[in-house]
């Protein structure tokens, strides 16, 4: 047992830190630090730098062109990149589809899709949710009917992140009706340019539109676009959602936002406020406890009482903690958080002169946007159900 990172890990940390310092474009760093909205071009500007360095798919093994990092290295990379002002890795091609293709994709599918994901050429949208079905994957009602060497897909997908700037869609469709709703679901890849697809952006509470609805009207999809076995898609979907554990607690993001609180407090004359110091101290401690819990769970003979729901525990606590940090940010902003300038939030010119200090202007939008993190990926309520159920039946 030791608290210190190994010399190798420390060297790796410095390597990442200097890479971020030297290669993250200043304009992008500033956009991230100001909490402005990022578009595909913004992410790509960073991912391309990472690609050149071989780091664009941090969680991928070497054989697929990833860096083959240990969990600890991925953790260090995440923290250093975020504290250095880089955008998060949000590409669902890297985080979600990649692991599924590696596990059950054909050689053709791997060769065709994985390199383009790493190069940020192809962006993938995730099409799991549908109207009337929340986190319950088995409620898929979008149908895919075989027609020669194609499937004809009809349905309606909801809450599809970033669909408006994606090239491809991976989704679950129903290929067979079954008494058990988990059966008869197929995992399928669809080109977003196929006729019959309509994307409707959803305007969000903070004025952004990260999410979309997708209508599929007699969309013809080649049969080779089925991933894995027909009718087994539900298990792949579950694998995908359970796969990404590093980062589920959002430690790097929380540290990034706590640093933002400190910087704002300094800039706006609150550095010596004892009430703020107490709340910040309490949050730092909570973050530390969560961070070390994530690290402990990676260690040998340190599994939790209910290993199957460790990710749920980290998610519940990590998201609720991050929301508290956003709440504190809003409080630090004071009346400066009230003016709302959509163009400025997009990083466009906005009103001139700016209607609020640039470092305060996006805080209300960021706060509102942060409400989603206890909803997406399984609500906190559902996670708590899972945790107690696993414990009670263990």
């Amino acid at each position, binding site marked *: 047992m030791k608290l210190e990172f190994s010399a190798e890990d420390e060297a790796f940390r410095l390597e990442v830190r200097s890479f971020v310092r030297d290669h993250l474009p200043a304009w992008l760093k500033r956009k991230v630090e100001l909490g402005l909205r990022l578009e595909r071009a913004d992410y790509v500007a960073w991912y391309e730098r990472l690609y050149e360095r071989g780091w664009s798919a941090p969680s991928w093994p070497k054989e697929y062109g990833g860096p083959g990092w240990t969990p600890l290295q991925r953790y260090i990379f995440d923290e250093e990149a975020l504290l250095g002002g880089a955008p998060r890795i949000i590409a669902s091609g890297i985080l979600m589809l990649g692991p599924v293709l590696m596990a059950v994709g054909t050689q053709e599918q791997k060769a065709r899709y994985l390199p383009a994901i790493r190069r940020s050429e192809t962006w993938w949208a995730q099409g799991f949710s549908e109207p009337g079905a929340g986190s319950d994957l088995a409620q898929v009602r979008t149908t895919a009917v075989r027609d020669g060497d194609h499937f004809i897909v009809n349905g309606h997908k909801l809450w599809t992140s970033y669909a408006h700037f994606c090239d491809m869609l991976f989704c679950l469709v129903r290929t067979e009706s079954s008494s058990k709703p988990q059966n008869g679901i197929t995992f399928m890849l669809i080109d977003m340019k196929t006729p019959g697809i309509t994307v409707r952006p959803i305007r969000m509470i903070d004025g952004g539109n990260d999410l979309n609805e997708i209508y599929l009207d007699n969309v013809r999809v080649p049969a080779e676009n089925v991933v894995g076995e027909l009718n087994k898609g539900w298990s792949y979907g579950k694998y995908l959602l359970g796969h990404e554990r590093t980062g589920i607690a959002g430690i790097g993001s929380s540290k990034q936002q706590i640093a933002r609180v400190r910087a704002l407090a300094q800039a706006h004359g609150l550095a010596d406020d004892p009430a703020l110091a107490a709340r910040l101290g309490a949050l730092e401690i909570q973050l530390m406890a969560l961070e070390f819990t994530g690290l402990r769970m990676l260690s040998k003979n340190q599994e939790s009482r209910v290993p199957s729901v460790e990710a749920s525990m980290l998610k519940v606590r990590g998201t609720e903690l991050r929301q508290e940090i956003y709440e504190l940010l809003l409080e630090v902003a004071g*009346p400066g958080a009230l003016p709302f300038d959509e163009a400025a939030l997009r990083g466009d010119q906005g009103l001139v002169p700016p209607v609020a200090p640039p470092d305060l202007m996006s805080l209300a939008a960021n706060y509102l946007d942060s409400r989603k993190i206890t909803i997406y990926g399984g609500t906190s309520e559902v996670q708590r159900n899972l945790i107690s159920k696993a414990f009670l039946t263990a």
Partner: protein
Amino acid sequence: MDFSLTGDHLALRDAVRKFCDGEYPLHQCGNAEAATLSASRWAALAELGLFGLDISAAYDGSGLTAVEIMLAAQELGRRLGGGSWIASNLPAAYILSKAGRDAQRSTWLPKIAVGRRRLSLAYLESGWRYDLAKPAVTAVQQNRGWLLNGTKINVPGADAADGFVVSAGDDALFIVDARTPGVSVQSFRTLDGRAAGHVTLDGATVSGEALITGAGRAVLQAAIDYATAALCAEATGAIEALIDLTTDYLKTREQFGQPLVKFQVLQHGIADALIDLEQSKSMACVAALAAGSEDAGQRARLISAAKVTIGNAARRVGQWAIQMHGAMGMTDECRAGHYAKRLLVINQMFGDASYHLQRFIKHMAQGNGNES
């Protein structure tokens, strides 16, 4: 010690509620108003008699009190109505009523009461948080008038204002006509979609009669307390509406084979929201009663206590409502977000819960600690 509502109170409440039900349809309430809609609604609110409620009968008002303002504000809160009235026009008129010269009153108040003139309060400056500081806006006596220079920020309803009550110089308040040369407004919207603006005075010259005699920071603070009490009432109405619409959603939305409202955890969330609501209502009454108090210390203490209570309740209920609506709650289409945003704006206006807790403690230490 009595919080009873009279028949007149109930009649006023019902009239405003009925008005709001018609004027602010639930499915679009909270949406940003175009200038023409805003103007027609302003006229309708004037018609209803809201703007004159607390203006003396001598100036064509109803001569009522902060209690009636509370009842009206609560109803506006239920439908996110009222535009800039409570946060800006109400305290501006209050200052005039309390400290204005006769000529100022007779010029402005009757027209305010019927909605023909709009007077906004312009006091906040860049870099301030919530305590009143010495204004950076300067007022230099010149000939028989005053030369004003500087910028006031975040003035609700600035774009539609005919005039501003402006704090300037050491400790003075002026009425500045919006058409005065050198006065300009940079318009924008606040988070809740309402219109606001920064008001720049670039060598604006006003006459000697523009000075509000007898006014100063104490009156300005009283006006802010007065508006804070009304905002507390408005927030209470918004909280109540938000509980209703969230509960309705939980009743209809099914998950795992049953309506969400069947889940005990969500039921307990409703119970807590209801307790928050009842306490908010009570403290809104207390704030309204305190708003009329001559004792500035007691007024500060009670109104700060109300803002803390309601600020915390608003934060909890706002967050809860979005969470209960799930992904739907994150969209602009869902009303929950609009209510949450208005509550957020109210929380950051005139001081958030942390600020008012400290203010309460300060006045607690000075007072005797026993309000009874």
